[in-house]
């Protein structure tokens, strides 16, 4: 024990000695210095803003890639995992090829492939001559495709936005009320509840009425390029770097999640499925009401690990120039900011990410776990 302490003290002493010798500051004052460089794809960022603001933007970008990646990976993973157990030989085999293909390829290679082979050197045109895909019978685009930037439609706020959302919130409350009413009625009279349809119908009706009566609080903003073709003036612009990173990580993680899903479904005793079949449940109902709820319980802990891996892997975006927190920190170290403290901040950011994700999902895990007496 004493040896470990001594070794730690020795290492720390060496670090401080070396830092003072090379005149690298040993405090965290650099965080309030101006950043000194612009952030790609972030036109609102002023290089004079302090470094901690830069770190926040990096965190935001990491979060954006992680969130979309996790959602995509979950959906694809679930579908592929179920497909692997399909009774259709072709479906099962294709799913297996997908899983084994992505699982055994380095994610970095996949990211680089998307970024370079699909986008930068791919068949798409450069941005000033971007491919504008028109809506049929209209002059506006629904998609602007180019090597470096991709424009998709977005919603632009027009009028009464606040009021609209308040009404939507009321609609959600009403839908929840309808849900309980249908459930109670089902319990009381035994007639089919159809509570999902009822609740969604209520919500949809409220939103529709509010939207029409407020005269359209939101309008589509179709992606369009400026006169000289260099900027995207409307719609939502996303960079090729972001797309490559998110898609590649989503597919890579989906292959892992698919295996988790498959193993969890196989872990549900066969009798459960057969019993559901004996009750004349359709295959969909069998999955929805019998197999998936039980498999989920087994699947949650390993899936948490996969989500954590995905968020950590977003750091690979630095290779394709995505402005995530690792990439920005690296650039900032290149601008003569002290490396040890910068890396410490970076590690802190990732540790917080890991802790928050595992905390949230562990809480969720507790709600789905079997409650034993």
């Amino acid at each position, binding site marked *: 024990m004493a040896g470990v302490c001594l070794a730690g003290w020795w290492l720390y002493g060496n*670090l401080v000695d070396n830092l003072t010798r090379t005149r690298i500051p040993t405090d965290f004052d650099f965080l309030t210095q101006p950043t000194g460089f612009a952030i790609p794809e972030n036109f609102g960022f002023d290089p004079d803003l302090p470094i901690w603001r830069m770190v926040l933007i990096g965190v935001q970008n990491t979060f954006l890639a992680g969130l979309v990646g996790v959602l995509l990976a979950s959906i694809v993973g679930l579908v592929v995992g179920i497909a692997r157990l399909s009774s259709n030989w072709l479906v099962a085999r294709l799913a297996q090829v997908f899983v084994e293909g992505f699982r*055994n390829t380095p994610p970095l290679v996949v990211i680089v492939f998307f970024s370079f082979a699909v986008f930068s050197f791919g068949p798409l045109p450069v941005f000033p001559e971007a491919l504008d895909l028109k809506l049929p019978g209209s002059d506006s685009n629904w998609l602007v495709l180019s090597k470096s930037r991709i424009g998709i439609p977005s919603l632009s706020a027009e009028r009464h936005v606040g009021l609209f959302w308040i009404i939507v919130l009321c609609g959600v409350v009403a839908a929840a009320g309808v849900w309980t009413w249908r459930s109670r009625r089902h319990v009381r009279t035994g007639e089919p509840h159809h509570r999902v349809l009822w609740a969604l119908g209520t919500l949809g009706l409220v939103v529709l009425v509010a939207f029409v009566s407020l005269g359209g609080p939101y309008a589509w903003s179709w992606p369009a390029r400026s006169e000289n073709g260099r900027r995207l003036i409307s719609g939502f612009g996303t960079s090729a770097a972001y797309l490559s990173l998110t898609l590649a990580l989503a597919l890579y993680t989906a292959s892992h999640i698919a295996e988790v899903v498959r193993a969890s479904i196989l872990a549900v005793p066969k009798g459960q499925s057969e019993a559901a079949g004996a009750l004349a449940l359709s295959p969909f109902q069998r999955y929805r009401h019998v197999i998936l709820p039980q498999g989920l319980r087994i699947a949650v802990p390993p899936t948490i690990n996969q989500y954590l891996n995905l968020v950590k892997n977003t750091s690979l975006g630095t290779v394709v120039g995505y402005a995530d927190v690792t990439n920005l920190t690296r650039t900032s170290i290149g601008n003569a900011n002290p490396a040890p403290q910068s890396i410490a901040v970076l590690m802190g950011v990732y540790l917080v990410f890991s802790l928050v994700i595992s905390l949230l999902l562990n809480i969720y895990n507790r709600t789905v776990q079997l409650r034993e007496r």
Partner: protein
Amino acid sequence: MTATVPPDPHASGDHPGPPPRPTAAAWARENLFNNRHNSVLTILLGAGLVVLVIYGARFLFVTGQWEPVRTNLTLLMMGTFPREEQWRIVVQVYLLCAAVGLLWGGLTAGSRDRARDAGVPFSRARLRDGVRRWWPVFVLLAVLLGMTRTWLPLAFVASALALGVVARRLMEALPEAGRRGAWFVAGVCALAGWQILSGTGGIAWWWGSALVAAAAVRLTRNVRTDARWQPAARLALVAGSVAVVWAIYAQLDFGGVGWDDWSGFQLNLVAAAASIVLAFPVGLLAAVGRRSQLPAVRWLSVGYIEVIRGVPLITLLFMGDLFLGFFLPTEDPLSKVTRAIAVMTLFTGAYLAEIVRGGLQAVPRGQVEAAQAIGLSAPRVLGMIVLPQALRAVIPALVGQFINLFKDSTLLSIIALTEILRIRESIHGQREFLIVGIAETLVFVAFAFWALAFTMSRESQRLERRLGVGER
């Protein structure tokens, strides 16, 4: 003690023979068109698949520009390894093939003998099974050989494989007593290969002395000594062999190419292999430390494991690249490759610790209590009772970790080490390949990783089934 027979995957087992093969039409009706739903799916996916296969085949055989890969094949595999020292790699591969052949033959012969003792029929693994299990590796070899311009590599690979097969046959033909010596020869072959490649400089003497010390201890095992003096005598033996080997190495000057000069795919393989081997003691220590009674040791282990597992490898690699040398007194004495491998070792150690912990938890308490009851000391309980059982259960997870590490070795390109992905990038800096074959080189790199990782993962699943992990 009763002889235990490992389950033999090739024995026909007690299953009745397979049911008669259905006709193609019956099979398709059963598996592709068994209801309306599946028929629609089959037709849609089948059409998509046909289009995909046609495009893929066109890309592979017609439109693909493989010239960048073909021209730079040696660069991709070995990078900047000095060309006049290439014979070292050749010798190492021969020695490794011989070692693997001996090892494999020994395993086959061992299970053959056990099967004979137990009166169970034994059938050797057939070539067809080998091809079925290892086809990605063979395809990779075929691709590599197909791209070379001379016949020399073909002759080299063929002779190396032949050497392995001969070594295996030799080992199988040996009687049991002779096989024990052959195990040692296999170890010497593997080690000598490493030494010839990396030379005798640096800390290379460490490997040689470890082997000689192990051999010395084993050979003197039956020499009777007073029990009191035995530990001291052992220690003296080990220290003596280390000293002798060190002295010999200090006299030798064998040149060699250390890992600082390795690059290309070789660096990926070596970085992954070296890190997992070096990380093993680290992981073991951290796993045992996590179960320690002393709170300080426990918290230290937990802190190390959780911090490392919570951050991406790349941040640690940046740390290693930028200021790992700052933790040491002298002015940055470590090379870039050494620092990277040190960081990967630290990283893997934390994951191995968790894997080993899982194995430790799987050992029933009764085992420890029984060992204590017969009076074993705490280190012996750990070393003789707990760890052998725990490690047996975690072998598949270790292979999985190695695969991950192998894939993660591509991250070395980010800190400007010339591993295969970095070399691929530099190929497109050559004037004639600036925009030629971007996708092709990437597909080649991806396939090289895929072939090895896929084969390893399947072998580890096989091992898992054979070890019966999770069933006992």
